[in-house]
């Protein structure tokens, strides 16, 4: 018997099933839309970070720090400025360590000025524990020092510290600093000619008990960077020089 009551019940069941199916479909569409949204944001983000890491380096203001070619020897720091300067500033830094870039932004000009005035020279240990870019930058820093534009290259590296430091970027940076880089410099960068020296600097830093970067010593005495102000640093260099 197909009474209207029975028909109603069957009709209602059919409607309920249809609604359930619709809800299920809605849920599936919702999941797909959310997944697509997150994916688009993530892919765009990766693209943005890749662009930030691999774009061309920017130029830096030139300086008059004397830049004579310096030889690189294993386990020994790069010396910037005249070695006859009375005060020695020793720096342990990684070209990719964010705190080092902050340090450089705040105190770099003072250290550069001390080199220019002949008050101090810089002993640089470019460590490379953050990533491959750190090591590539440290190697290129050695190449630049040999080629005679170490101080400017040093500041260029920190001014562009968010870059990945591919070989091409390092060569481009050299070009922006001092005109077209020599064939020898380019080969030095691409062949990682100072790879052994880079490892030897890391080993030397470990031997000297360096646990964090940046670490700064003035005439061999460790400086508390966390509580340092530019004025205090200037006073320290002056005092060290007068003694």
């Amino acid at each position, binding site marked *: 018997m197909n009474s209207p009551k029975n028909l109603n019940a069957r009709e209602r069941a059919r409607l309920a099933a249809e609604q359930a199916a619709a809800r299920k479909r809605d*849920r599936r569409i*919702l*999941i797909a*839309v*959310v997944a697509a*949204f*997150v994916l688009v*944001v*993530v*892919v*765009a*983000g*990766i693209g943005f*970070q*890749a662009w*930030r*890491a691999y774009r061309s380096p920017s130029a830096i203001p030139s300086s008059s720090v004397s830049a004579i070619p310096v030889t690189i020897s294993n386990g020994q720091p790069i010396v910037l400025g005249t070695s006859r300067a009375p005060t020695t500033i020793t720096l342990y830094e990684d070209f*990719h360590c*964010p705190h080092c870039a902050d340090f450089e932004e705040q105190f770099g000009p003072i250290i550069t000025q001390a080199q220019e005035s002949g008050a101090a020279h810089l002993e640089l240990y470019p460590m490379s*524990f*953050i*990533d*491959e*870019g750190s090591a590539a930058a440290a190697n290129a820093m050695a190449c630049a020092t040999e080629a005679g534009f170490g101080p400017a290259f040093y500041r260029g590296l920190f001014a562009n*510290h*968010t870059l990945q430091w591919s070989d091409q970027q390092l060569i481009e940076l050299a070009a922006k600093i001092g005109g077209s880089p020599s064939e020898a410099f380019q080969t030095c960068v691409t062949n990682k000619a100072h790879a052994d020296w880079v490892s030897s600097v890391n080993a030397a830093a470990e031997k000297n008990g360096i*646990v964090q970067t940046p670490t700064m010593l003035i005439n061999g005495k460790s400086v508390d960077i966390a509580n340092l102000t530019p004025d205090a640093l200037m006073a320290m260099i002056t005092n060290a020089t007068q003694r």
Partner: protein
Amino acid sequence: MSQSVATEPRRAEAARWVSTGARLVLGGVLVVAGALKAIDPQSSVAAVDAYELLPAPVATVVGWGLPFAEIALGSLLLAGIATRVVAAATAVLLVIFIIAVASAAARGLSIDCGCFGGGGQVPPGETAYGTELVRDAGLLLLAAWLVWKPQSRFALDRSPQ
């Protein structure tokens, strides 16, 4: 009988307010954590590397992309869009974080979780795995609550039925 009729809507209303709080806290934490990492991609990659779980190229992609996944999920939670689905995805992400931190602790690495930027090696004895795991577990609880009770105030989600 008349009592239960009165308490039911009140309970549902209270749950909606709890869900509102959970949504805003979880979403806010995700957006902040993602943004802090996104502004410093090098540290983010280094933080992923420090877990020693992924090969370098994969760690780079994760270090670049993960912060944006957090920002995307966090924004959806703050807006209250597809709350149940987004909360479930967030829960999965948090379980992965918990496994990663626990594995770092179990392997005796001394790293910072890099949850809110930073990360990487820390001196032995300065790890905070306990705090990090408790925090992640708390956030996981919020996510689970939202999967259970996605209805909340100030959300763009449609009201039920």
